[in-house]
């Protein structure tokens, strides 16, 4: 029986090549997108699941509100982990990662390599996390100073092979050049780990003023005993605040109790986030790497589902639309004694057949496009991911779910035909007024319009990010790394290069106004005795005389640092936000106090106010910031003006390489670093664009098929109208009118939905575009144009056909 069904299904597919093509292409695109996004989502939710204790590991987050500055940090103070373990039996183990020093130089023969995937960790690192060893025992490998654990990649990179590396010494520029003995080699960290480290050094090598509860610089992970409720456990932090933080704070400030802190509107909060939630749910500052976002997982899942549904909808519409062709068969089968049930089964097996074919094409399409998809999504999903048991089951089950979804409505629709009426040739009347079909078309176009609007808004915001005035001039600024040169060399190089005609100005620029560069924040007060009322936190950047000019920032009051004032070593320039926090009406000449460990204040005089500039991404508002003179020479910034950028860089490189042949010459452009902050948005933009185009293509294909059918069905009516004198234009109008109405209706539904979605997306940006009415208008016009062009292929063909032909068939 099923063979008979499939035979008929197959012959039908072959016979109606056009419809089969539309259906198969639509479904394969839909299923292909669905599989790609499923791979993406599977990868996103798999982060950090591979650790044996993944459900017991938590990271400590610090959320601090102090002096009007809010900080949500992924790090905590250095003693926090040990304190928790000492005081609370629920804590089995803790470990810390210290990555605040950034990249390190490592020697490989005569070459020096700048290693970025490097950090200091506690010796307990491998008790907490599960990273299988290739050589040695990582659990005891980092107990001594001057040891190092390498990943397989690092071992090959520095020693040629895993075997050569073990037991050898690696020269790392870490607080002076030191030799570190390779004591263990681990397999590379899986791609779905939220941190990616290749070189792990022992905490004993860190040069840090340990024991400070008020400085937050360590990523700290704890293992809680099985069955511990981490939210309940987090209430213990209140106790820790009182017992350990308060005594240290009262050394610097006039604070007697925790209530004093809160009364002044300040807040210190610590919390635990489950390890496996970090990738999708954590967006603190000072993360160990770029995290994903649960929001995008939801958005993409929804997009995948909708594209699949649009493709299924095409199948439903085209199949029911062609029912006149199948009606006769249904009639005969019923007369020959089949039951409705088996007809439904027949049509469902047909839809499953076509979905299975589309599925096979879709898998091929996934194979071919995975590299490209990885590229735009910033992923490294291997094709092997398709063969994981749970994904394999998903792939096998998918056609048997999608097939019936696409087929169920046509199956019921077709199987309900009455044999005598269809055999007599009168098809079910009123098929034009098929409400469900109209609903499906509206659904397809609503979804498409929402996607189009979403894509336009994302692109507008990206454009806004690139062109908005961020308070500094990011174009034509070259940043050169100096970190491995002596102070004298840095200075002499800078003064030599400053003489180049291309250079307009130059400065040392350790702190630059893009995120992921050096930061430092400190507490200031407006009076010599700091209280929680007059104290506030702000960025505290060491710059030089030419910094403001080179970065293209603007002084709005007072003056810049000047070499002609001998007293500028205690001068400070604030941004407008910081001025607002001080409460000074006329800030120039006012004093600011910065407390130090020895309980002595450093007194600064405000000499100028710099216009607010965005030093973090536009997602965040501009925070308070101060500039002072000080050593920051580990980078040099050159503002240049030349068409031959490559030649200019070549000249600088020549100068650098003349001083030291073994140091890597590393540079970046300020505008590139600036755009790097929006990588995620750019990816989202590209992905959204691609899926939108696909969704629109699939919907247009469906509309095309539907128009074909309607034109066929109304052949006789068109013939009669033409005989009675209707022009081609009138016929085209009559045939298009109903569809256009549906699309206008879809537009009305899509507009408020997309307005709501996009304004909530934009709310993530402190600096954002306004949603413009014309975006919606343009989208509406684009959609209508696409629809009219699609329809015109069929309507014009039908309208210019010779009426004699269509009427003769009666």
């Amino acid at each position, binding site marked *: 029986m099923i063979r008979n069904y499939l035979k008929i299904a197959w012959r039908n597919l072959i016979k109606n090549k056009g419809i089969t093509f539309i259906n198969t292409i639509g479904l394969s695109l839909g299923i292909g997108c669905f599989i790609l996004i499923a791979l993406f989502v599977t990868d996103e939710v798999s982060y950090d699941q591979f650790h044996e204790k993944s459900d017991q590991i938590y990271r400590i987050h610090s959320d601090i509100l102090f002096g009007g500055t809010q900080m949500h940090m992924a790090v905590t103070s250095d003693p926090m982990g040990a304190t928790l373990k000492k005081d609370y039996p629920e804590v089995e183990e803790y470990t810390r990662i210290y990555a605040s020093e950034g990249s390190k130089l490592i020697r490989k023969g005569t070459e020096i390599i700048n290693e970025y995937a490097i950090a200091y960790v506690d010796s307990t690192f491998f008790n907490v996390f599960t990273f299988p060893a290739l050589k040695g025992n990582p659990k005891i490998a980092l107990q001594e100073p001057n040891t190092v654990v390498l990943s397989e990649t690092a071992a090959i990179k520095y020693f040629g092979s895993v075997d050569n590396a073990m037991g050898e010494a690696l020269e790392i520029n870490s607080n002076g050049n030191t030799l570190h003995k390779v004591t263990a080699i681990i397999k590379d960290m899986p791609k779905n780990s939220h941190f990616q480290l290749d070189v792990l050094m022992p905490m004993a090598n860190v040069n840090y003023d340990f024991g400070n509860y008020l400085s937050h610089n360590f990523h700290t992970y704890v293992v809680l005993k099985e069955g511990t409720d981490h939210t309940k456990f987090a209430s213990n932090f209140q106790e820790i605040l009182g017992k350990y933080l308060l005594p240290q704070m009262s050394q610097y400030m006039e604070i007697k109790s925790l209530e004093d802190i809160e009364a002044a509107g300040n807040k210190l909060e610590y919390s635990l986030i489950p390890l496996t939630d970090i990738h999708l749910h954590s967006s603190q500052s000072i993360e160990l790497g770029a995290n994903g976002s649960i929001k995008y997982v939801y958005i993409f899942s929804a997009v995948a589902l909708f594209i699949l549904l649009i493709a299924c909808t095409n199948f439903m519409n085209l199949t029911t639309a062609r029912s006149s062709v199948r009606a006769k068969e249904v009639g*005969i089968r019923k007369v020959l004694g089949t039951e409705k049930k088996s007809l439904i089964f027949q049509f469902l097996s047909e839809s499953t057949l076509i979905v299975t074919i589309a599925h096979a094409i879709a898998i091929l399409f996934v194979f071919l496009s995975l590299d490209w998809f990885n590229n735009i999504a910033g992923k490294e999903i291997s094709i092997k991911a398709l063969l994981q048991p749970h994904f394999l089951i998903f792939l096998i089950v998918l056609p048997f779910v999608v097939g019936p979804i696409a087929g169920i409505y046509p199956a019921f629709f077709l199987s309900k035909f009455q044999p005598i009426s269809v055999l007599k040739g009168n098809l079910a009347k009123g098929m034009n007024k098929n409400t469900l079909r109209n609903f499906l078309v509206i659904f397809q176009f609503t979804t498409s319009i929402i996607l189009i609007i979403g894509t336009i808004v994302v692109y507008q915001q990206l454009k806004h990010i690139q062109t908005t005035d961020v308070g500094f001039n990011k174009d034509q600024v070259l940043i050169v790394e100096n970190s491995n040169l002596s102070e004298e060399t840095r200075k002499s190089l800078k003064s030599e290069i400053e003489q180049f005609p291309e250079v307009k100005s130059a400065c040392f620029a350790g702190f630059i106004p893009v995120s992921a560069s050096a930061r430092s924040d400190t507490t200031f007060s407006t009076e010599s005795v700091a209280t929680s009322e007059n104290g506030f936190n702000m960025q505290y950047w060491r710059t030089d005389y030419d910094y403001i000019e080179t970065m293209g920032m603007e002084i709005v009051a007072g003056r810049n640092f000047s070499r002609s004032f001998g007293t500028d070593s205690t001068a400070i320039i604030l941004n407008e936000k910081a001025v607002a926090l001080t409460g000074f009406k006329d800030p120039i000449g006012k004093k600011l106090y910065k407390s130090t460990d020895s309980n002595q204040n450093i007194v600064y005089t405000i000499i100028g106010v710099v216009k607010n500039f965005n030093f973090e991404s536009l997602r965040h508002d501009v925070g308070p910031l101060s500039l002072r003179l000080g050593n920051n020479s580990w980078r040099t910034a050159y503002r240049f003006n030349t068409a031959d950028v490559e030649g200019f860089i070549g000249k600088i490189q020549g100068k650098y390489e003349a001083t030291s042949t073994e140091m890597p010459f590393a540079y970046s452009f300020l505008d590139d670093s600036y755009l790097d902050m929006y990588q995620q948005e750019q990816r989202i933009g590209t992905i959204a664009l691609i899926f939108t185009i696909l969704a629109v293509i699939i919907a247009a294909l469906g509309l095309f098929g539907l128009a074909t059918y309607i034109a066929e069905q109304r052949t006789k009516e068109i013939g009669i109208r033409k005989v009675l004198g209707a022009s081609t234009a009138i016929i085209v109008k009559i045939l298009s009118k109903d569809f256009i109405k549906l699309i206008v209706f879809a537009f009305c539904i899509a507009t408020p939905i997309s307005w709501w979605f996009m304004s909530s997306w934009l709310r993530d940006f402190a600096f954002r575009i306004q949603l413009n009415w014309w975006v919606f208008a343009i989208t509406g016009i684009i959609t209508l144009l696409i629809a009219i062009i699609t329809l015109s292929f069929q309507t014009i063909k039908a309208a210019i056909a010779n009426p004699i032909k269509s009427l003769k068939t009666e």
Partner: protein
Amino acid sequence: MILQLNNASRVINSGGKKIALLDNISLEVKEGEFISLMGPSGSGKSTLLNCIGMLDSFTEGNYRFLDEEVHTLKEKQRSKLYKEYIGFVFQAYHLIDELNVYENIETPLLYKSVKSSERKALVADMLDRFNIVGKKDLFPAQLSGGQQQLVGIARALITKPKLILADEPTGNLNSKQSTEIMELFSELNKEGVTIIQATHSEKNSSYGSRIINLLDGRIVTE
């Protein structure tokens, strides 16, 4: 006796008016009869055949088929009944275009869940008997009208029905083909199959053992 109609009518609503497509039909058909229904277009021949074939139903009166009161049966039981005992032959043949000759003839057996080996034997017999073995792999579109109707009759006979209902079986055929089909019917009738045919043609009606004339849904003469 194979079937009996007692004051059977079919009345429909059309634009608020009641129209009787069949009006008080009383009829008895004995096993082995060959009945020709005659009458002008719209006289109710097709409706009567459809109602007898249970594709349509009488709205009033009694219909008794092989000791079953059809008018009291549920849809499912009715469908079981006609599947078992009735074969249909249509003016437009109504073969399934996507199936070849062999598969078209086989289809009713599939619905009766006949075993594969038995199906093969039955279809082969039928092809043999109608001399269309050589055409078994052809599709309906590749056959002449007469050949298509032969396949249609073979398909109707494959389930060994007691009653064949034929609605203008030769309406689309030329006279030579018509004669062949009608001769086939009288042969079948001699073998014991009961046949009711609707026809316009005096010549065709003469093959029957009994002629019933219909006009405006009533039996006028017998």
